[in-house]
């Protein structure tokens, strides 16, 4: 069964076609990986899916609903959470507030105190799970790169998305942290969250994903379980340029 899928998604910047009639579908409740050489359109794909960029043509549907023209926050509220390639946190807000900012109050709740007990507990919960709870009171700009990655993740998780899109979660983090993120993804997936991960680190991809989609020049060239992808020479071709 499919939750997130795109039909003939197309996006061009100026002259060059970045997404070329891309039709992909990701498996619900699984850890999906999206790989491919640099410039194969993975991040653009994410941006189109999450509404940050308007595709020129094509459709994006999530859980059966067409979300192509929705605003990013509407898509987020539909259950799609994402992180950014160069991780983005709110630099001048404390770690705790960074996470709390992910709550989505409505109506009268908007005027209630931002640090309500329930939220704060949940936020601290996530911080603890990611092992940065002790930094709660510090402004995010003072965190190390790895800590910021974790913080961004905590924020996304705080917004309780059914499906989490991670854009290079392993980018520039030390091996130890890498394992930790990998483990975390697995745990959360076990709790029923769907993941779509763009990642260059093959070890991580192969170790955690159930289903892999390979991009080349803005279109999928292969998909399947890690075991299959490992041996697919089209993939090797794409990477080695043979």
């Amino acid at each position, binding site marked *: 069964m499919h939750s997130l899928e795109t039909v003939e998604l197309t996006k061009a910047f100026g002259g060059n076609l970045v997404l070329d009639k891309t039709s992909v579908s990701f498996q619900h409740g699984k850890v999906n990986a999206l790989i491919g050489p640099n410039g194969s359109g993975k991040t653009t794909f994410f941006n189109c899916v*999450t509404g940050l960029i308007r595709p020129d043509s094509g459709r994006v549907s999530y859980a059966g609903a067409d979300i192509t023209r929705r605003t990013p926050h509407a898509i*987020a509220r539909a259950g799609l959470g*994402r992180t950014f390639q160069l991780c983005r946190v709110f630099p001048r*807000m404390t770690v705790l507030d960074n996470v709390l900012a992910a709550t*989505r109050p409505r109506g009268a709740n*908007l*005027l209630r105190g931002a640090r309500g007990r329930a939220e704060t507990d949940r936020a601290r919960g996530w911080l603890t799970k990611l092992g940065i709870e002790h930094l709660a009171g510090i402004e995010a700009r003072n965190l190390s790169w790895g800590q910021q990655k974790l913080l961004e993740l905590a924020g996304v998780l705080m917004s309780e998305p059914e499906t989490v899109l991670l854009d290079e979660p392993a980018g520039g983090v030390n091996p130890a942290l890498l394992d930790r993120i990998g483990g975390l993804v*697995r745990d959360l997936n076990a709790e029923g969250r769907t993941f779509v991960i763009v990642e260059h680190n093959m070890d991580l991809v192969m*170790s955690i994903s159930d289903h892999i989609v390979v991009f080349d020049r803005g279109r999928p060239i292969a998909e399947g379980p890690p075991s299959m992808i490992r041996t697919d020479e089209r993939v090797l071709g794409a990477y080695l340029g043979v």
Partner: protein
Amino acid sequence: MPSASRAQPARIAGGVAVLAFAAVALAFPSIAPNPYILSVGIVVLNYAVLSTSWNFVGGFTGYISLGHGALAGLGAYSTGLLVTKGGLPSFVALGVGALLVAAIAVPIGYAALRVRGASFVIVSIALVLITLLVFQSWASFTGGSRGLNVPRPFPGLLRPEHHRVFFYLFLALLALALLVWWLIDRSRFGLGLKAIREDEDKAEALGTPTFAYKLVVFVVSAFFTGLAGGLYALWFGDLDPIFQFSILTGSYMVLMALLGGVRNLFGPLVGALVVGSALEYFKVEFGNSPLHLVATGVLLALVVLFMPDGVLPALGALLRRFSPTTDSSIREVTAAELAAERATIGGEQHAQPRNG
């Protein structure tokens, strides 16, 4: 965000300062040596209300408006016209007028806030110029360049008494504006707004309806600006488009807010006290000269270039560097944390499940 990591002594000091200000403000009418000084006090208070109102947009969302002068002018004129043409009682007119300004702010915000970045500033400047044009040209309705004369709400009072009353009215309005700012600041709405200021895309991706948030806070800001303008109209009595819709009013608000620090509740107030008093002082000592403009411009440029977070915060940081007790030590702390961090990671490594 100072509120988050401020040491206890600093907080107490702050409280004392606030109380001291309140005391002086309440006593001011009786210690002011003559009516002129009192009227200056009112002008400064008016600046304080305006820049605080401005800070609803500037401080929370980081969107800088140079056009709030026009909103104040609209407040003044709508109040004045409601009294003279509509025959409403002065203070009813004040309220209705402010609501009108808020209503006008909706379409303006819609045009200005949809597109990100400088277009907001452009629209805000355009707003001043267009309102000036309209209120000058539409003489039959607004009185045009001859200005509009707003009848006094308390005709009986002599001028000094009149000043005294309005001083307290402005003080009350200031308190109200500060209260609302504080409420938003600590609210979830406020948190969302600050998220927008920090990184609008990120906030949007986390599910914050950024456009709606910006629009709402812009309208709130417009409402208070309108109130300030209207109250000024009732106090001052003579409205002239050239002055009511002057680009300078807006830039004073920005300067005051930036100077005092847009992230602090009291930043704009302090900025207004400094700049406002300075303006009037130099006028008395050296008379009016275009050098006021030069000073304003230079000051603004310096703040923008070197202390975009405000002068007072910058000074505060400077002071803190010398006192060990407070949060200047963030960096060392994080250094320590980082060490701890690595340790923990190292420790957890083995615990990690190895699957693949």
